[in-house]
Each structure stands twice: as C-alpha cells, then as structure tokens.
C-alpha cells in the first residue's frame, strides 16, 4: 500500500463527509428551487388577502390607520401558505435525502474548522437571544403594558416559529451555503409573518408607539432587499448545488469501485 492509496482513502472519506454534511448538493439545489418558486409566486399574491396571521397590531385602530398611512405589509392566508412552508419543506426534504444516503452508506461527520464552529456559536447565541427575548415581550403584552391587542393564535404560532429557530438551525443547518439560504428565507418569513411588529426589533412592543412608523418604514424598505438577496442566493444555490451533486456522484462511483476492487 502506498502513500497515494492512503491519501486517496482519507480523501474519499473526507469528501463523502463533506457531501453528506456541509455541501449537500441535491439538498441545496432543492432549497434554491423551492425559494425561487416561492419568490415567483409571491408577487402574484396580494399582501393582505385575508385576516390570517396579520401583523400583531392589525386589529388596533391606531395600527390600522398606520397601515393605511405607511402601506405596511400584512400577511394574508395565501401569502402565508406560500412563504412559511418553503424553508420548512426544504429542511425536511433535504434531511430525507440525506437520511436516504446515510441509510445506504453510513454517516460520516466532518472535522470542522474553527471558523465554522465560531459561526455556529455566534448564530446559536443570536437565535438563543431572540428566543429568550421573545417570551419577555409576549409576557409584557399579556400583562397589558401596551395598548396593543394581539391575537393569541397568532402569537402562539409566531412564538413557536421563533422558539424553534435556534433548535432547527443547530440541528439541520450543516454548512455555510445552507446557512445563507436558511437565514435569508427565515428572515423573509419572519418579516412577512410578524411584519413591523417583530422582526425589525424584537421589541417593537418595547419601544414607543411613535417609533412604530420607523419600524414600518424599515420593514417596507427591507422586504424588497431581502427578496432580491434571496433571489441571488437561490440562483447561487442552484449552481453550487449542481456542482456539489456532481462531486457527490463522483464520490459514489469511487466508493463502488473501491468496494468492487476489495470485494
């Protein structure tokens, strides 16, 4: 056995680990396709076609005036049905694909560099912070410190979404490209679902009422940018996913050859 063979074997297991963990190929391709589909459908749907999951302040008279005044977006049922499931369906589908490969060939984990470990910790801290602040905000509203009325169903759904974010991110997001697509997708979902009421400040409820107009303006300014960024990220995901998948197919061929040569 020579040095080249050993290098090939270690390289093969390293590449297999990479393609089943941080560079999922088909999984990323699927994410890009789903995001593009959602982004293509969204402009065809009105921003407030129903009262489902509207902005937390939608029932408030002052908020309604504000909405009319600022044209802030309130999410409707159809819009919610398009935008909310896309990151969730993607994550479930890519995990199913991964489970399929792992079931046939076994799981191999990567040796992560310090940069990725640091990025994961920062992401977990940020999301953990959001998840920690959210119940405080919720309790303050429940205690009637604010003159805003919030639908309990909406609050529970929103809290569940936000509360699951740190867990889902650490559990299912395995690489930088996935993190970008997931991050942008979830930001868009949160922006759509919570509107000016949440994503542009956990604390819209913690700031003065007059500041809402600032948040609303930020939301209106940010949504198109988020959409554009997601378009770019989705197209990049399609391209990168294709390249990664071709690499994974090469690894599978080499594994089969290796198995045949020995067996």
């Amino acid at each position, binding site marked *: 056995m020579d040095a080249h063979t050993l290098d090939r074997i270690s390289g093969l297991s390293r590449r297999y680990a990479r393609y089943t963990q941080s560079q999922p190929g088909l999984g990323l391709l699927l994410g890009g396709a789903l995001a593009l589909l959602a982004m293509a459908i969204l402009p065809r749907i009105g921003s407030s076609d129903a009262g489902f999951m509207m902005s937390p302040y939608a029932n408030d008279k002052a908020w309604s005036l504000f909405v009319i005044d600022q044209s802030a977006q309130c999410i409707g049922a159809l819009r919610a049905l398009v935008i909310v499931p896309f990151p969730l369906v993607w994550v479930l589908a890519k995990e199913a694909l991964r489970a399929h490969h792992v079931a046939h060939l076994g799981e191999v984990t990567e040796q*992560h560099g310090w940069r990725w470990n640091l990025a994961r910790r920062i992401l977990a801290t940020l999301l953990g912070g959001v998840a920690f602040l959210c119940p405080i905000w919720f309790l303050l509203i429940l205690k009637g410190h604010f003159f805003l009325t919030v639908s309990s169903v909406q609050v529970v759904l929103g809290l569940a979404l936000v509360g699951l974010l740190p867990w889902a991110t650490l559990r299912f997001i395995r690489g930088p490209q996935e993190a970008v697509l997931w991050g942008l997708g979830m930001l868009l979902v949160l922006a759509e679902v919570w509107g000016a009421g949440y994503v542009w400040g956990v604390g819209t409820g913690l700031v003065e009422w007059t500041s809402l107009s600032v948040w609303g303006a930020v939301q209106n300014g940010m949504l198109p940018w988020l959409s554009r960024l997601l378009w770019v990220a989705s197209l990049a995901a399609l391209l990168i996913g294709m390249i990664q998948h071709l690499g994974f197919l090469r690894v599978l061929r080499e594994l089969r050859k290796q198995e045949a040569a020995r067996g």
Partner: protein
Amino acid sequence: MGEKQASLPTLLAVDRLVHEPSRLVILAALSEVGSAEFLFLQKLTGLTRGNLSAQAQKLEAAEYLGIEKAFRGKVPVTTLHITPRGRAALQAYRDHFQRLLDQGVLGEPGAKQAP
C-alpha cells in the same frame, strides 16, 4: 550499504499495529473526518464485518480509536473516531516510512511510494 544496515533496526521498529493493511486503511479513512459509521468503513475498506470489527477492536485497545454504539430508531449503529493518539501514531508511521524511503532502505531514495 552501511547506512542500510543501520536502518534495519529502524525498519523493525515500525508500529506493527498500524502497519497491518486493514488497520492502516481504517486509520487513514478516519484521519480526516470527525467520525464514521461502521457501515461506511465496511464499504470503503471492503473488509468483512467480522474482520473490520476485530481490527477496530485492536485499534481501540491501543487507544487509537474510539468506538461508540447507539441506536437509530431500532437499528444499532456503531460509530468510530480516531483519537489524538491514533492520529499521532498514523503520522509517525508515515514519517517513519518516508525516512526509510529517503534512506533508500525500501527502494530508490526520495521515492514517495510508501505510506
């Protein structure tokens, strides 16, 4: 010739635990990943289940490998990872053979055909 004779003790001093081809492949396969399941190593090395298990146990006894057993649902899953000691042993083995090659003990000096 004298240099080659002087290298013989060095040749015999090779880490035999690592030198065995099946164990060498297992260590090489694990050297650049965090951990690998038994199933993957079986596919990669082409070893039988019994042989792979026996070689892995020898490496574990020498603390070159760590072995964890768990269940995924109802399916038992065995995961292996290389320890720092195992990584050092593999590196030492490769360095050792490169030195022998450089000295011309295993062939032409400077050749890079050995581990």
